[in-house]
């Protein structure tokens, strides 16, 4: 006897519970900013919610979410980076305690020298245990490019810690 397929709402709920951490971490590695990471991850899940009726839930949703998060982050970076602009600092995500924020402030400075690709290549393998192939798939680059980016990033971190 096979279990009935979950409804799209249930499937989404399960994805939101199980996949939030890797998507948030991926967004954090790309953006190096807690507020931006939260926004990017929230937006990726919101888009998944809107497509819950049409998406193929028999396939893992993580790949879809990561590609969507990358696209959102890229659009966001470029739109914010281009042209001269003034904007108020966005509020921090609710729920973060002051200690975590302060520690991240210091850590962020150490990681700012790395490109988003270098950060993601290093951090997602360590934090999530992803392979170079998995990281490359999320970033839209080859596993070899991930390996090279991780190597460059580690060299920068080593240089920065001296």
């Amino acid at each position, binding site marked *: 006897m096979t279990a009935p397929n979950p409804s799209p709402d249930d499937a989404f709920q399960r994805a939101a519970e199980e996949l939030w951490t890797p998507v948030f971490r991926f967004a954090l590695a790309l953006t190096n900013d807690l507020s931006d990471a939260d926004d990017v991850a929230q937006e990726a899940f919101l888009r998944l919610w809107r497509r819950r009726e049409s998406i193929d839930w028999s396939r893992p949703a993580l790949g879809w979410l990561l590609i969507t998060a990358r696209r959102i982050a890229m659009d966001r970076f*470029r*739109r914010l980076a281009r042209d*001269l602009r003034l*904007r108020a600092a966005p509020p921090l995500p609710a729920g973060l305690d002051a200690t975590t924020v302060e520690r991240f402030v210091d*850590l962020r400075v150490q990681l700012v020298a790395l490109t988003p690709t270098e950060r993601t290549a290093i951090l997602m393998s360590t934090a999530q245990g992803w392979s170079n192939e998995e990281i490359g798939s999320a970033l839209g680059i080859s596993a070899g490019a991930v390996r090279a980016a991780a190597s460059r990033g580690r060299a920068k971190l080593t240089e920065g810690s001296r």
Partner: protein
Amino acid sequence: MIGRRDPVDEWRDLSARAAQATGYRPAKDGSERSSRGVGFGVVAAAIVVVLAGLALRPAATVTSSNPGPVVASAADAEFRLTLTTPKGTYTPQDAIEPVASITYVGPDQTATIFHATKPAQFRIEEVDGPRAMGGGTAQPCLSTALVRGTPIDVAFGKGGSPTDDPSRGFDLAWYEDPVLRLPQGTWRIVASLDVTLGGCSGERHALEVGNVIRVVSGVPAPTPSVPTLSAPQPTPLATPTPTYPVSSPPAATVVKTTRTLGDPHITLYPPGNAVPSISSDAAYKLCLNGVAGCLPQPPTAIELALVTDTAFGTTSSAGVDTLTLKKTLVWAISWIGSSQCSFAGGGVGPRPTAPPVQPLCDAVALVNARTGDFIYTVQYAHQ
């Protein structure tokens, strides 16, 4: 250093804490997130959709007999947008000088609006004809402070894509002329307000008003000595458009060796034998007329180059990236070591360790050397 943790280990710990503390926050009806608004990309998409669907709002238009002026106004709970064109009839030789006035009429004493290059954009449409000017605009997030009841004026500025077909639009020479002149016909000049309150992704306000004018051959209609407007007479207080230097720009050069900018995704290459369709002066003119995002000081260099930006493009639903700038011929207008930069907030910054000082920055504005379109300006800490 003793006691200093490996940053990667530290990140693993902190990212787990942060992920646990945040989590997906579903909206009440599942259609829209209520916490801090949807992301910028969705806002941008919404702007396109809404603008496409916007008809000219029913405005308190004052239809004036010649010689004018022509005034139209529209308002919502927070803003009033008024478009004034000094006369109703012109000749093809006349300079037409429409002005949009934006007034904050909301409940607070002051309000900061967030907008694109200018808080009001213009377009021109031929009534019963195909010719038009207008279209896309860069989407930076500039801000302008408004005092309740005190309008700011936004002078007309040209923007759009030149065409060599005079039956469809306007050619490059027309776009390069900062003065607005129109050929014979009946034209609708449209001003649109598209701003947000409370941040770049905040509460959106969009208004549109239009003035219809005629351009005829013969003797120009006289300019009224005392314009009578039913709308409040605009009182310029502050201009949202920065004042750019009118001095001559540096002589144009070409990029001789490949170099990556402070934004590591952007690389400039020697242009080889590529020939630009617009001059460096025409590119710099986009700074002078406020179309391009430029620093308010003479640039350090204007260089012809090919540019590739590996972080600027579109991604298909299959996840395939297509770069927008890939060896694209541009005029790169550069400012090196400027103190005139306006850096964004952008979240938590490093803890201050010394009294704040004005940081130096480098900035590069890119203008497409084939089409004359302003692409974007990128700025970063001085290298």
